[in-house]
């Protein structure tokens, strides 16, 4: 497991294990198509459609870098920490999913992994931060000034979470092979 996309894939696998009918996508970006803003993974549109009752895609909004205190050995000042600031955008057709938005947030939070094993990183920790359940706000963020189209039993909400990936500088492949210092 070598990148944030791989970690997002693990989160998606956990979502599918509890909500098998959900359609999940990886890290998306806002793209312009025919003058309209919409989410896409590569060239593929991943936004709202009439097919899926629950649809999930992710967005990477930023990375915060820091040094983990008291973790340095030798000349190192410490392990590096990359905190990926993530959003999970969820479309919910509660008429078909039979799940309310806040119940869906709870299910996803309860079943998401807290820690992921990675050959690249020393530790990968996942933490849910907050959720925005105001559908109009999230729609405006994702689709710009397009008229809000969702009826009473359809909504778009956002779960904010962080992925903290800790690694030893200069030690990716080498650490995966476990060097042993001995005489």
């Amino acid at each position: 497991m070598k990148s944030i996309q791989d970690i997002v894939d693990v989160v998606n696998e956990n979502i599918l294990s509890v909500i098998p009918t959900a359609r999940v996508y990886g890290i998306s970006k806002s793209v312009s198509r025919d003058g309209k803003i919409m989410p896409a993974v590569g060239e593929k549109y991943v936004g709202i459609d009439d097919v899926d009752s629950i649809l999930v895609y992710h967005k990477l909004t930023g990375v915060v870098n820091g040094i983990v205190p008291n973790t340095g050995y030798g000349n190192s000042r410490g392990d590096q920490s990359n905190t990926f600031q993530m959003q999970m955008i969820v479309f919910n057709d509660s008429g078909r999913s039979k799940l309310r938005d806040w119940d869906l947030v709870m299910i996803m939070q309860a079943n998401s992994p807290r820690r992921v094993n990675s050959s690249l990183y020393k530790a990968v920790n996942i933490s849910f931060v907050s959720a925005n359940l105001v559908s109009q706000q999230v729609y405006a963020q994702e689709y710009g000034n397009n008229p809000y189209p969702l009826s009473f039993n359809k909504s778009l909400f956002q779960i904010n979470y962080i992925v903290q990936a800790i690694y030893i500088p200069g030690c990716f492949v080498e650490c995966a092979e476990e060097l042993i210092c001995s005489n």
Partner: protein
Amino acid sequence: MGIYYPSGCDDIIPGHVCDPCDTIEQGRVRSVAFIKNGFAFSNIENPTEWQAGVASKDIILIPQVKGTFDGGAEVESAGYGDQATRLTGYNFQMQFQDPNYKGNCNFYNLLKNSRNYHAYYRTETQGHLIETTVQVIPKNPVTDDVNSEVVWDVLVKWSGKDLPCPQDVPPGIFDECVVAV
């Protein structure tokens, strides 16, 4: 009866070195080595001698540690004349953590039984050789924190009259692990 006081028994104290532009030496015990008693350096700053010692298994390198050296706790005994006490030596302690936990249990269990090694520790650019053999006391504590690391916590103790002196670190010796074969 004449009183004879031997002359020339005072150590010659060298001049103090003062350089306002001197580069500072930054802290942390960053690397440690154990050198078998009897292995002698002709030039401890020469990396070739270190490589030969590692190859002959007379030198054990632990390149990446973090630790402290206490500077020595003074040992004083009764003084003479106008001196109430006099300094007779120090009890020294160096403590370091070794992050290579899983593969080194046998290593530390055997090292702790030996009194046949000198220790050497490195700060930023300077190495310090301990002239007497040392006692190594390793521990592997576990804390109640899922985000913590289990590492070797090693205490090295020795006694001596003199403080360890800094010398330039041999280039390249402590830069990377030596892979066990």
